[in-house]
């Protein structure tokens, strides 16, 4: 290896380190903030870290994290999916209804049905965006209300209770395997699969390319429309999965499940370092953002902070994340510039 240590090789090494550091710092920064928050809260009140509390935290994070992973896929392509909360609601109610209709259905089948149902709703989003050539923000704002409206019509004020669903299914919502809640395992599997796909597959990298510079993506011959469509289907499918898990966790379902959660999801993604204008960031960051937001909501009451301040705290966190992002990209830009001038 020492034989190839030419000037260009060292330059390569330095650039790689720089890029890696930028990547690591993003995720690391959120991780540090999380550790700091947990430590401070624990010191203030050691009961914050009881087994039950940790489990609750993981359960709460899991569903938000799955939604955030789906949202990150869409945001990376310079789009946004505001309808995920409504898709979750519809999927959760559909899950309950399926069990009411045929209680004997195996759980894996129901999970797959939820995924497929969400994917169908995602297809509606993707199709409208592709056909109408309208910004995703507008289209999904529309479907947010449409899907929720369908949910209300379907439910007609009814409620599906835990008694209507098989106990095995409800156990899945609170049981643990190897110390981890099953819901968190779902989230980890989704996270690792999507993270690996985005990093190591052509079509995954093309999603980043589309978000980074849409005009260039078209000139490269990337099937932009198809990729963005697929991103919305994926986001919908994950929201559908989240709906099934929501049903399993809470057991009581009405048409209000997941109401307003879309903004929480977008916040998690942004806090997690995914650039809102696409092209950069990772699903790992988005998932960490989801855990951080959930932890903050749990920690503030423990710290004795007025619950009315919770939203403000989340807001400050978003602004801090954006500020960090700016400072970071400025620093990376500067060091790239200095490197270039030293080369001549």
């Amino acid at each position, binding site marked *: 290896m020492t034989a190839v240590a030419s*000037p*260009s090789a060292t*330059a*390569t090494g*330095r*650039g*790689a380190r*720089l*890029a890696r550091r930028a990547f690591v710092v993003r995720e690391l920064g959120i991780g540090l903030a999380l550790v700091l928050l947990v430590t401070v809260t624990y010191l203030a009140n050691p009961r914050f870290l009881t087994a039950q509390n940790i489990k609750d935290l993981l359960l709460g994070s899991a569903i938000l994290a799955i939604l955030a992973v789906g949202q990150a896929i869409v945001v990376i392509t310079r789009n946004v999916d505001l309808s995920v909360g409504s898709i979750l609601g519809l999927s959760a109610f559909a899950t309950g209804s399926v069990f009411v209709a045929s209680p004997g259905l195996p759980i894996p089948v129901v999970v797959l049905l939820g995924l497929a149902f969400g994917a169908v709703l995602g297809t509606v989003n993707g199709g409208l965006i592709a056909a109408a050539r309208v910004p995703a923000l507008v289209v999904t704002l529309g479907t947010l209300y449409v899907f929720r409206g369908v949910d209300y019509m379907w439910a007609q004020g009814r409620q599906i209770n835990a008694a209507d669903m098989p106990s095995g299914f409800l156990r899945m919502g609170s049981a643990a395997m190897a110390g981890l809640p099953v819901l968190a395992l779902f989230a980890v599997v989704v996270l690792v699969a999507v993270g690996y796909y985005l990093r*190591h*597959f*052509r079509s995954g*990298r*093309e999603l*980043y*390319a589309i*978000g*980074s*510079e849409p*005009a*260039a*993506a*078209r*000139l*490269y*011959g*990337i*099937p932009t429309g198809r990729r963005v469509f697929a991103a919305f289907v994926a986001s919908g499918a994950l929201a559908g999965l989240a709906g099934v898990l929501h049903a399993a966790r809470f057991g009581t379902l009405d048409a209000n499940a997941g109401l307003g959660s879309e903004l929480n999801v977008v916040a998690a993604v942004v806090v997690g370092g995914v*650039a809102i204008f696409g*092209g*950069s960031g990772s699903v790992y960051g988005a998932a960490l953002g989801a855990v951080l937001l959930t932890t903050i909501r749990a920690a503030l009451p423990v710290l004795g902070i007025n619950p009315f301040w919770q939203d403000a705290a989340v807001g400050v966190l978003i602004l801090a994340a954006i500020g960090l992002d700016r400072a970071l990209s400025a620093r*990376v*830009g*500067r060091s*790239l*510039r*200095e490197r*270039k*001038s030293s*080369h*001549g």
Partner: protein
Amino acid sequence: MLSLEGVSKSFGAVAALRDVRLELFGGEAHGLVGENGAGKSTLVKILAGVHAPDAGTVALDGHPLQLSGPAQARAAGIEVIYQEPTLFPDLSVAENIFMGRQPLRGLRRIDTARMRADASELFARLGVRLDPDRPARGLSIADQQLVEIAKAISLDARILVMDEPTAALSGVEVDRLFAVTRSLRDAGAAVLFVSHRFDEVFALCQRITVMRDGRWVSTDPADDLTVDELVRRMVGREVSALYPKRDSTVGRPRLQVRGLTRHGSFTDVGFTVHSGEIVALAGLVGAGRSEVCRAIFGVDRYDAGEVTVDGVRLSNGDTAAAITAGIALVPEDRRQQGLVMELSVERNATLPRRWALAVGGLLTGATERRAAATWAQRLQVKAARLSDPVHMLSGGNQQKVVLAKWLATTPRVLIVDEPTRGIDIGTKAEVHRLMSQLAGDGVAVLMVSSELPEVLGMADRILVMHEGRLTADIPRAQAGEESVMRAATGQAAAA
């Protein structure tokens, strides 16, 4: 190899191409010249598959070719290098080269290590040092172009279309590009070379096609043509003087720069521009010339030094103060920095004077229109309507609007960065005439230019920068291509 017959294309009511023909042969470089708005770029975009022709046929090896998208053009072996490269800023250089066709390993996963190695190998072949892992964001235009060329080479393109690839390159980089292009051509590729620089067209091409007003004018072997003949065919008239530099009396110092330093960009830059003087700032791309201009104008802050206009010191990083002091900056990149592309011609032209033109704090359409019309006439801006958005104009006319916008503020110091880049020869002469006229009126003009003939033809004095430092200050009488190039490449001691 590739032939176009009777190709026409209209955008709305505007006919961009009318009955154009073109034939490219393997192993031959073909020059395409014409004024701005002659339809060269539209032709390039048809070859790239971006636009579909309204009429006419494109044939490859005698078989008709349907170019319904960039992917088809690429599949047919056509690779286009644009004047302004389009890369993905967030992705690595290696990914930019191989996007969509990254080397794969098992399970169709991307083989990152091989992709990086392949990119390094391409850069080694090109003789450049670029880090495949760094993001494309922050690369100079020259480096971005190299990434595009590396991409074309990696594709083994049979037909290489280059749309003014040298507009932003310095001499060394152009030589490197030409060496690479020649080797591709000698390997059997057909090259279509679109350029405004005749010396380059003649140096590279065997045959030259001239276009005018969207029509094909002529195609001849390069050996049968002269520059004068080409110019005559392009404009349909003789261009009398390309560089109408009038001698003007040099007055007192207007713009003084002392010890200006911005870490990583330039160091200890100091010079004076007098009223009535045109001073050129020459050097290779990346020498720090544009950065100096931006610092003077207050766009970027500097770390040390001072800037004075007529003896009054400007505060660091304060664009408003610079404008008040009478500095006007015509930036290098007119699309991003010079104009608001969506606004109308008249809005753009009156933007810096919107307060002066306002009546009681409100802008009235009438005053704006009158002021814009005056300037459009003086600079001979060709626009269908002044209320059209600026992006509908050709490059040369856009540059005129940028000029109009600043000239209307009656500046005392005019800084122009690559004023004629990508502009056709007729407009070029007009821009030069204008600069000369301004200097005659007592304005101090600082011109950044990569085109040596322009530098030598226009400037009273030539400052040369190399790697962020001023290396030479050459008076017009002693300036020659050689002395400037030597200083620009750092071979001469400071004069």
